[in-house]
């Protein structure tokens, strides 16, 4: 039961991260490799403020979101004028830099030693201590994220995002400020990613820089693709499938040094297979109405 709750929490945390990336990749067609960087910002904000400053978890969430939002806005301002592949390179560079900061700014992040004993969230004296309570808590946040993402997706704003994805020039020609839309959705993505990071830190109770590498970004990207880009429920399904499947490896007698590469080879292969055979993912995008106002 404890193990099951842990897996459910993990799925919910990655659900949040995947939904947030789906807003950029699936809705708007901005491929970003910096998701783990923003996740890291959230995780480190939570870890540092909780362990060293005794902040409340929800305050650290807000701080993390503010930092991630500001940073992503700056990044978007500087680089979103690039199109397609070139933007990918910029976000790739940014991801590598942030990893370097987590690793080398030892005064702030304790570098490779990581931060231990991150406490669980607490509200009005009620602590979400223990796996079952924490699973409920993360599921609650996941539901909230789903609701926000759906609202964004189905609003006129979300329809403009899809229009930008399909044909940027056409969207601009009907008077939509493409750059502003891209920057705003990218900022929302980063803020939600930082929430996911904070949840992650609090769930694992220990973070170090090696979690927030480009590989994590690619993993979350794989969840978006396999779940179904443009469909937020698909993101949750993708996270559920790709997190629970490798957990099954635990029940066989596979040493960890072998199990973790096999797990990654599995999702790399799934990514290629899905793009080839089912590019729309497990749950394809549903367009509710075709009119862009």
């Amino acid at each position, binding site marked *: 039961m404890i193990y099951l709750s842990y897996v459910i929490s993990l799925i919910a945390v990655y659900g949040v991260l995947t939904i947030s990336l789906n807003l950029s990749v699936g809705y708007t*067609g901005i*491929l970003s490799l910096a998701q783990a960087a923003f996740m890291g910002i959230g995780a480190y904000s939570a870890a540092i403020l909780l362990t060293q400053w005794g902040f409340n978890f929800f305050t650290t969430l807000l701080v993390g979101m503010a930092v991630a939002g500001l940073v992503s806005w700056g990044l978007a301002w*500087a*680089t979103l*004028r*690039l*199109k*397609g*592949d*070139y933007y*990918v*390179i*910029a976000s*790739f*560079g*940014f991801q*590598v*830099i942030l990893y*370097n900061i987590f*690793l*080398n700014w030892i005064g702030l992040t304790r570098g490779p030693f990581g931060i231990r004993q991150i406490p669980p969230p607490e509200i009005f004296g009620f602590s979400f201590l223990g796996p079952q309570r924490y699973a409920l808590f993360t599921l609650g946040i996941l539901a909230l994220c789903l609701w926000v993402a759906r609202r964004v997706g189905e609003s006129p704003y979300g329809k403009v995002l899809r229009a930008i994805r399909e044909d940027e020039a056409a969207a601009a020609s009907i008077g939509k400020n493409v750059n502003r839309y891209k920057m705003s959705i990218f900022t929302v993505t980063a803020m939600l990613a930082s929430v996911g990071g904070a949840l992650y830190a609090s769930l694992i109770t220990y973070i170090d820089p090696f979690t927030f590498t*480009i*590989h994590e970004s*690619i993993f979350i*990207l*794989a969840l978006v*693709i396999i779940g179904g880009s443009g469909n937020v429920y698909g993101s949750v399904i993708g996270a559920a499938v790709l997190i629970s499947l490798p957990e099954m490896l635990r029940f066989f007698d596979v040493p960890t*040094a*072998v199990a973790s*590469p*096999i797990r*990654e*080879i599995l*999702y*790399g*292969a*799934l*990514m*290629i297979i899905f*793009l*080839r055979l089912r*590019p729309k993912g497990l749950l394809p995008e549903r367009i509710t109405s075709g009119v862009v106002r």
Partner: protein
Amino acid sequence: MEFWLFLQLLINGIIAGSLYALLGISFTAIFAPTRIFHFMHASVYVFAGYFLYQFAMGWGWPVPVSILVAVLLAGFMGVLAERVIYAPLRRMGAGSMEMLLSSFGGYVILQNLILLIWKSDPRTVKIPEVLKNGIPVGLLTFTPLDILTVITAGAALWAVTLFMRHTKVGKAMRAVENDPLGATITGIPTEWVRLVSFFLGSVLVAVAVTFHVVDKGLEPTIGVNAVLVATVAMIVGGVGSYSGAALAGLMIGIAENLGIWQIPSEWKNTITFCVLVLFILFRPRGFFGHRMTRYEG
């Protein structure tokens, strides 16, 4: 004293920059004709290094033979990536985003194969000590290996430029770069041209990793940095321009090494990234590019 330090850092920058130039050229050779953001380049880079290690240290082959075989094998890995990953997607009519995402998938698979086969411990390849003994010139030092690095990078640039200008295949590559559809219509075998560009790019990147391995050793993680530098060099140089990519690589190397004067060396990547952002903000076409707009369409 300050002056000598500056000169030494400049020389170190030119040496590092030569390898970056090679990386930039190698990425351009693939990206310009095929327009595929070949992230698996990172894995080819690392794999070539491990091939070399396996042949030279594992099986005791002579180092020059090992290098030659490793470089050729890397070339075929590039060809394989095109045949297995990209060509089927292209036939389906997939866009550049699907290509890139599949490339990530391939990268993850290859990267973990390396972990399974060679584990993650650092490896080294021994070469004759003569190559690594410093030559003092005034207060400066550099090694014969450094000189060889710079010469190789220069020769590679020269050879690639001649190849692109004067051979039939090179001209075909430029034609495909300019207009893939038009090239097909005029009877250029575009599929084959793409294979050549993958082979060429992968061979060049294998040459780059050879120098990295004999100088600094080998770890599974070195590929990501290499691709970051390669892509930044390509953009800063102006996409499609080989001499631009080389010049940009050289510049990044110099900027990083002069930066060490004031900034600890862990922040090297940050300097690279700053160069990229500055160019995006103030000269998005790169050094020699008017071509970026063409790709944007």
